[in-house]
C-alpha cells in the first residue's frame, strides 16, 4: 500500500514538474493594461473593436484591435476579447492617434500568418482606412515582415510555437551583419528565417536565415546564419501582447546574449520594425552554437559554409547563467574560397582556418586564456538537420576537433591584469596577416610587427610560427605560470616601460629563458636585458642588478600539463591545477627571487654579468664578464690555467659549471672573392661574393664589409657597405651586384674593417681582383638581327635593303621631276 502510494506521488510530481516547465516558456511580459473598452467600428450591433489602453512603448499607449472574423468576445479581459487569428492589431505608441505598427493576423490553410506593416514614408505612422468596420492598410500594399506558423497556433497550453517561417522585405535587421543600405521594401524577399522546435518543448532548437543580397556573389558579406541550442532557453520575456513582439525598451546586447527576450523589435519612435531576431541568441550562455557564413545556403547539399563555421559556447561549470566558460570559434575557408583573400587578388587552393579558443577558468565572467591557432585542415564532416545538411563540426566535437589536430601557427594570450567579458572571447592574438601571407606560403617570413601589435600592456603572449603540434599548455616549475607548450618565444608588456621576454632556447617546447627589460624601446635598451634567468636542465643562471648567480637545479619540466579544456572535467581539472600550483608565481620584476622560491643557494659573483647565454647541442654556453672589484660567494670551477680576474670568460654547462678564458675574434677572407661571370660584358649584372670566417671564439662585432669597383685611375666606387656580426667559430657570406658600365680593365675588391675589442686596434683586410670587361655590342647590328629567333635573317636584311632601294628610287624619281 505504502509503495503504491509512493509511486502515485512520484507520477504526480513528474506531471506537475512537466507542466511547470511548459508554462515557463513564457516569462515576464513587457506591457501593462490599464483599461479595455469595446465598441462597434461600423456602428452595428456587434462588438468588433477592442481598445486596449496601457503601456508597451511609452507610459501611455494604446492598441486598437479590429475583429475581422466576427468572433470578438465581449469581455474586459483583452485575452478573451481578442485573438491572433483573424484580428488586426494597430499599435499606437503614445496614444496620439498614429499607428507605429500594424499586424494583420489571418489563416493560410491550416496555418496562422501574421503580416507586419511599418512606416514606409518617414512620417512615423502606418496609415490605414476603416472600411465597413475593418481596417485596410494604406501605408504599403505588402507587409514588411510575414510570420507563418504552419501548425496553426502561436501559443498553446503555456507553450510558445517555435515552428515559424519568416520572410522579410525591407530595410531592417533581418539578421546580424545585414547590410541595410542594400535592401529596400519593394516586394522582393530580402531574407527568410526558419525557426524550429523539433522536440516540441516550447523552446527553439534551430534557427537559420538565408539572406538574398542583391549585389555580386563576390561581395564580402554575410549571407547565411544558423543558430542552435542544445538545452532549453530561459523563458521568453519582455513581449507586447503577441509573444514574439518586443515591448520597449530595445533589447541590449547583454540581454540578447544572457536572457531570452522577444525577438521582433520595434523602433516605436519611428514606427519601424528594427529587427526580427535572434530567436536563439547566438552567443547565449553555454550549450549554444552558431554559424555565420559568406557562402550561400543553396545548391547541392551538404552546404559548404565558410567564415564562422562553427562557433561553439560551452557552460562547463553548469551554472547556466548565460555566461559561457569556454568558447571555440573557427574562421574557416574551404579550398579555393573565392572570398578568402579576394581583396589581395589571390586564391588559396587548400582549406585554411583560424581558431580562437577562449576560456574562463573560474566562471567569474572574465576570460583568462586565449589560444589562437592557424591551420590547413578541411572540415569534411557532415552535420545533418531534418531539413538540410552542412559541412561543419558537430557542436559537441568542436573542442576535440581542435585539440586532436596539429597547427601551423599558435599563440597563447593571457590577460595577466584581467579581461573584460566579451561575447566572443579574447580578441587579442588573431594573426590574420600570418594566415593570409605566411601560412598560405605567399611570404617566406612571418609578418613584421604582428607580435608587437598583438596585445598591449598587461597581456602575456607566447607563440610559435612553426608550431606543427597539437595544442598543449603546461605550468612551469620556474615561474609557476601557464605557458604554451611548444612556444618558441613570448613577451609580457608589464607596464608602459617594462617588458618580460620568454624564449625556448633548446627547442624542447618549454620556456627556459626569461629576460626582463626596463624599456620596450629597442634603441634605449641596449644589447643585454636588465635581468636574465636561464634554466639549462642542470643549472639555473641569473644575471642582472650587477651580479651573476647560478645554482645546480634539477626541476620537472612541468608541474601540470594539459590541453585546453574541452569538457567539464578538463575545465575543472585545469582550474584545480591552477589553484594548487599557480598560487605564488614568480614576480615579473624580480627574477633573482627564483632561487629563494626554489630553496636553492646560488654561487653569486657581484660585479659580473652573463651574456649570450645559449643552449646548444653541446649544452649550455655563454660569456661571463667580470668587472674590476668583483666579489664571489660559493664555488666556481675554472679550467686549467684560468685564474679568476676581471675579463671575459667562456662558460660551459658541464657538471660542474666550468669557465675558461676565451680567445678573441680572428677574421679571414680565405675563400677570396667569387664572380658570377669570369668574362663579363659591359652592363652585365655580375654577382660578387666573399666569405668571412671567424676562427676565434669571441664574436667579431661591427665588422664593416665594403665591396668596391675601380676603373683605371678613376676613384673607387663603393658597390655596397654593411656591418656584420660574426660569431666565434662561424662564417658568413656577403654578396653584392656589380654592373660594369664601360669596357676595359676594372679592379674590384672587398675590404673588412673592425676594431679588436681586446687590443683596441683597428684590423683591416682587403682582397682585390682585376677583371677585363668586354664591350657589350661587339656583335654589331648584325648580331641583333635575329635576336628574336625568327630564323629569317636573310629575309629581314633583304626587306630592309628593299626599303632602302625603294626610298632611293623614290628620291631619284621625285628629284628628276624638277
Amino acid at each position, binding site marked *: 500500500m505504502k509503495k503504491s502510494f509512493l509511486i502515485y506521488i512520484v507520477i504526480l510530481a513528474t506531471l506537475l514538474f512537466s507542466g511547470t516547465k511548459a508554462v515557463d516558456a513564457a516569462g515576464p511580459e513587457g506591457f501593462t493594461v490599464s483599461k479595455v473598452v469595446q465598441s462597434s467600428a461600423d456602428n452595428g450591433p456587434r462588438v468588433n473593436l477592442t481598445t486596449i489602453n496601457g503601456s508597451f512603448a511609452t507610459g501611455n499607449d494604446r492598441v486598437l484591435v479590429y475583429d475581422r472574423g466576427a468572433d470578438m468576445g465581449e469581455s474586459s479581459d483583452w485575452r478573451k476579447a481578442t485573438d491572433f487569428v483573424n484580428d488586426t492589431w494597430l499599435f499606437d505608441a503614445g496614444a496620439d492617434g498614429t499607428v507605429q505598427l500594424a499586424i494583420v493576423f489571418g489563416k493560410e490553410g491550416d496555418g496562422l500568418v501574421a503580416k507586419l506593416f511599418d512606416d514606409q514614408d518617414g512620417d512615423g505612422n502606418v496609415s490605414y482606412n476603416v472600411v465597413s468596420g475593418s481596417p485596410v492598410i494604406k501605408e504599403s500594399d505588402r507587409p514588411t515582415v510575414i510570420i507563418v506558423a504552419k501548425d496553426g497556433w502561436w501559443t498553446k497550453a503555456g507553450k510558445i510555437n517555435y515552428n515559424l517561417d519568416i520572410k522579410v522585405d525591407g530595410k531592417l535587421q533581418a539578421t546580424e551583419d545585414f547590410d541595410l543600405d542594400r535592401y529596400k521594401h519593394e516586394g522582393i524577399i530580402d531574407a527568410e528565417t526558419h525557426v524550429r522546435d523539433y522536440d516540441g518543448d516550447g523552446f527553439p532548437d534551430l534557427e537559420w536565415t538565408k539572406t538574398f543580397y542583391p549585389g555580386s556573389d563576390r561581395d564580402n558579406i554575410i549571407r547565411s546564419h544558423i543558430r542552435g541550442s542544445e538545452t532549453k532557453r530561459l523563458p521568453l520575456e519582455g513581449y507586447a501582447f503577441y509573444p514574439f513582439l518586443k515591448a520597449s525598451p530595445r533589447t541590449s546586447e547583454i540581454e540578447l546574449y544572457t536572457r531570452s527576450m522577444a525577438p521582433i523589435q520595434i523602433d516605436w519612435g519611428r514606427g519601424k520594425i528594427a529587427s526580427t531576431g535572434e530567436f536563439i541568441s547566438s552567443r547565449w550562455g553555454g550549450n549554444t552554437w552558431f554559424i555565420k557564413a559568406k557562402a550561400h545556403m543553396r545548391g547541392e547539399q551538404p552546404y559548404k559554409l565558410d567564415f564562422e563555421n562553427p562557433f561553439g559556447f560551452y557552460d562547463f561549470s553548469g551554472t547556466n547563467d548565460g555566461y559561457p566558460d569556454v568558447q571555440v570559434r573557427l574562421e574557416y575557408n574551404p579550398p579555393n574560397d573565392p572570398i578568402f583573400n579576394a581583396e589581395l587578388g589571390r586564391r588559396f587552393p587548400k582549406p585554411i582556418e583560424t581558431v580562437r579558443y577562449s576560456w574562463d577558468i573560474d566562471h567569474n565572467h572574465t576570460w583568462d586564456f586565449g589560444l589562437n591557432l592557424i591551420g590547413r585542415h578541411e572540415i569534411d564532416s557532415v552535420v545533418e538537420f531534418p531539413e538540410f545538411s552542412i559541412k561543419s563540426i558537430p557542436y559537441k566535437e568542436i573542442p576535440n576537433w581542435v585539440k586532436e589536430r596539429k597547427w601551423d601557427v599558435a599563440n597563447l594570450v593571457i590577460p595577466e591584469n584581467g579581461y573584460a567579458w566579451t561575447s566572443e572571447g579574447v580578441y587579442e592574438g588573431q594573426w590574420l596577416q600570418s594566415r593570409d601571407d605566411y601560412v598560405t606560403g605567399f611570404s617566406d617570413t612571418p609578418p613584421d610587427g604582428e607580435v608587437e601589435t598583438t596585445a598591449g600592456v598587461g597581456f602575456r603572449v607566447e607563440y610559435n610560427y612553426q608550431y606543427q603540434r597539437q595544442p598543449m599548455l603546461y605550468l612551469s616549475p620556474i615561474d609557476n605560470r601557464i605557458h604554451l607548450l611548444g612556444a618558441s618565444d613570448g613577451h609580457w608588456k608589464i607596464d608602459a616601460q617594462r617588458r618580460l621576454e620568454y624564449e625556448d632556447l633548446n627547442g624542447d617546447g618549454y620556456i627556459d629563458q626569461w629576460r626582463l627589460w626596463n624599456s620596450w624601446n629597442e634603441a634605449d635598451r641596449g644589447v643585454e636585458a636588465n635581468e636574465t634567468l636561464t634554466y639549462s636542465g642542470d643549472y639555473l643562471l641569473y644575471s642582472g642588478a650587477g651580479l651573476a648567480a647560478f645554482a645546480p637545479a634539477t626541476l620537472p619540466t612541468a608541474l601540470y600539463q594539459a590541453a585546453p579544456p574541452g569538457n567539464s572535467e578538463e575545465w575543472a581539472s585545469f582550474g584545480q591545477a591552477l589553484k594548487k600550483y599557480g598560487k605564488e608565481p614568480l614576480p615579473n620584476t624580480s627574477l633573482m627571487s627564483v632561487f629563494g622560491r626554489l630553496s636553492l643557494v646560488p654561487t653569486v659573483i657581484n660585479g659580473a654579468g652573463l651574456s649570450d647565454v645559449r643552449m646548444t647541442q653541446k649544452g649550455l654556453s655563454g660569456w661571463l664578464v667580470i668587472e674590476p672589484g668583483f666579489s664571489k660567494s660559493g664555488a666556481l670551477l675554472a679550467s686549467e690555467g684560468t685564474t679568476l680576474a676581471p675579463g671575459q670568460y667562456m662558460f660551459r654547462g658541464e657538471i660542474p659549471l666550468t669557465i675558461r678564458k676565451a680567445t678573441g675574434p680572428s677574421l679571414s677572407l680565405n675563400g677570396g672573392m667569387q664572380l658570377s661571370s669570369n668574362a663579363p660584358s659591359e652592363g*652585365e649584372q655580375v654577382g660578387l661574393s666573399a666569405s668571412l670566417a671567424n676562427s676565434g671564439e669571441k664574436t667579431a662585432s661591427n665588422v664593416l664589409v665594403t665591396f668596391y669597383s675601380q676603373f683605371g685611375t678613376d676613384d673607387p666606387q663603393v658597390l655596397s657597405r654593411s656591418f656584420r656580426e660574426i660569431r666565434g667559430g662561424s662564417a658568413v657570406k656577403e654578396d653584392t651586384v656589380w654592373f660594369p658600365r664601360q669596357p676595359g680593365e676594372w679592379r674590384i675588391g672587398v675590404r673588412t674593417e673592425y676594431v679588436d675589442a681586446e687590443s683596441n686596434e683597428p684590423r683591416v683586410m682587403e682582397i682585390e681582383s682585376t677583371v677585363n670587361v668586354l664591350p*657589350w655590342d661587339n656583335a654589331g647590328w648584325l648580331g641583333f638581327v635575329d635576336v628574336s629567333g625568327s630564323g629569317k635573317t636573310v629575309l629581314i636584311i633583304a626587306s*630592309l635593303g628593299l626599303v632602302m632601294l625603294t626610298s632611293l628610287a623614290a628620291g631619284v*624619281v621625285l628629284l628628276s621631276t624638277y
Partner: protein
Amino acid sequence: MSISKLAAKAKALTGQPQYLYVAIPAFYAITVSLFLMTRYGGRLAENDTSIFNRFISNVTSSGALVSATDAYTQGMGFQAVASFVISVTGVSVDAFLSFVYLLLSPSLAVMAYTLFRAFTGSARLASLSAFFLFIQPEFLFILFRGNHEKVTFSLVLTALLLLVIAPLIGNRLHIYATFMGLFYLMSFALVTVNVGFAMSWVFAVAASCALGYLISIVFRQFSMGAEMARLFYISTSSMIFIFLFIFYMYTPSIHFIQALTNAVERGAVLLLAAEPAGPADLEGPAMNPYEYVNSAWTSPATYVLLTSFNWMVAVLSFVMWLYMGYKEIIGRTGTWDRPRFTLWLFYAAFGAQVVAGVITDRSGQLGANLQLRVFPLFMLFALPLAAMALERGLINTIEIRALRLPVTGLALALVVWFSVAGLLKATNDPYFSNRWTFYLPQEREGITWASSYLQYSKMWVDFDERTRTSGGQYSSRFQATNQFDPGVMDPDTRYVMISDIVMERSKRVKGITIPNV
C-alpha cells in the same frame, strides 16, 4: 646612269606622271610593310597589340561587342571590323594583327596622297608628302603594332579629304550633301572606333574654327567667315555624335569617362587623345617621358639620330607655316585658297596639341607618352608644309649649277637614312633600343608550361611589361589564375623565368636587377 635617265625610265614604265606619283608612296608602303612583317616574325610584345588581341578574341568567341568579361571602353568599331574579317577569312587573331592588318598600308598611302594633293594642289608635293608619311617613325609604329590606329587613320584621312574638297564643288548641292553625309559617316565611324581620339579630333576642328574667326576679325578677312561657320557646325555635330555614343549607344564608354580621375586627365583626353592611365606597369612613380628616352634608348644621341626626320619636318613646316601666315594674312597676296587655309589652321590646332602634349609629358602627370599619340596626327599637316618648304629650297639651290650635284646627293643620302632610321625607331630595334617589343618562342613555351602547372602564384618574367604583353592568348591563360611580376621582384614571388633575352636585356636595363636565384 644619270638621275635624269633613271627618271625618264621610270616615267616610261609608269605611263602618266600622276600614276607615278601615287605609285611611289604606295609601293614604298608595301616594302615597308614587308619589313615590319618580317622583322620579328609576328612575335610582337607590345601593350596595345596585346590588349586588342584580347578584345577581339572576346568579341569573336562571345559573338557580342561587349563581352561578359571585359570591353574596350573607348569604342568597338575596330573590334567589330576585325572580328568580321577574322570570321570571314578564318585567320587567327595573332595573324590578323601581325600580318593581315598590314595590308591596309598601301591603301593608306593612296588616301594620304589624295588628301595631300587636295591640300597642296600638286601631285608631286602630294607624292612627296605621302612618301614622307611612311618614313615618319611614329606613323610607322602605328603600322607596326596591332591596335585600332590604322583604321582610325584611314577614317581621319578620308574625313579630312571630304572636309577639304566638299566646298570646292561649287553649287552642286546634291554632291555637296553627299560629300558632307559621307564626312559625317566617317566622323561617326571614328567615334565608334575610339571616342577619346574623336574628342581630340573634334577639339582640333573647333580650335581651328576659333583661330579662323580670330584671324578673320583681327585682320578683316571676312571672306573666310563661311568656312569658319562650316567648321563650327561640324565640330558641334560631332560632339553630339560623341555624346550619343557615350551615353546611349555604347555605355561602356561611360567607364572611360569615369576612369579619368582628375581634371588633368580629362583635359588631356579631350585635347591630346591620351589614354587614361591604367595600372602602373612598373613600380615607382609616374615616369617622365623625357627621362624615359634615356632609359629606353642606348643613348639620347641615338634617339635624336633615329628621330632626325621628325626634327627636320618640324622645323621646315613651322618655317613654312610662318611664311604662309605672313604672306597671306599680313601681306594679303590673295593666293590663299580654302584647302591651304584649312591646312594652315589645322597645323596650328594640332601643333598646339603637340606643344600641350610636351608640357604635360614634362609634368609627368600622365603615364602615357602623349608625343607618340598626337605627333602622327600633327604630321598629316606638317608633312605637306615641309614638302612645300623643301620644294622651294630645292628649286632655289638646284638652279645654282655648282650646288646641284652635292645637294642632290645629300638629299638622296638623307632619304635613305631617314627611311632606315624610321623603321629602326618604329620597331624599337634591339641594337638601339633598351625597350624591346618582341618575344622568343621559348619564352612562350615557358609561359605555357607555367599556365599548366602553376596556380595562384606570381612569376617574375622581365624588367617591364614585355612578356606580359607578348601577343596571343597564352599570357592571358597564365594570368587567369596567376600574376606576372615584372620589374623589381615582390617578396612573395616564388617563380622566376629568365630567358636569353632577359639576360641580354640585363646589360641595358638600369636600376633593376635579375632576381638572384
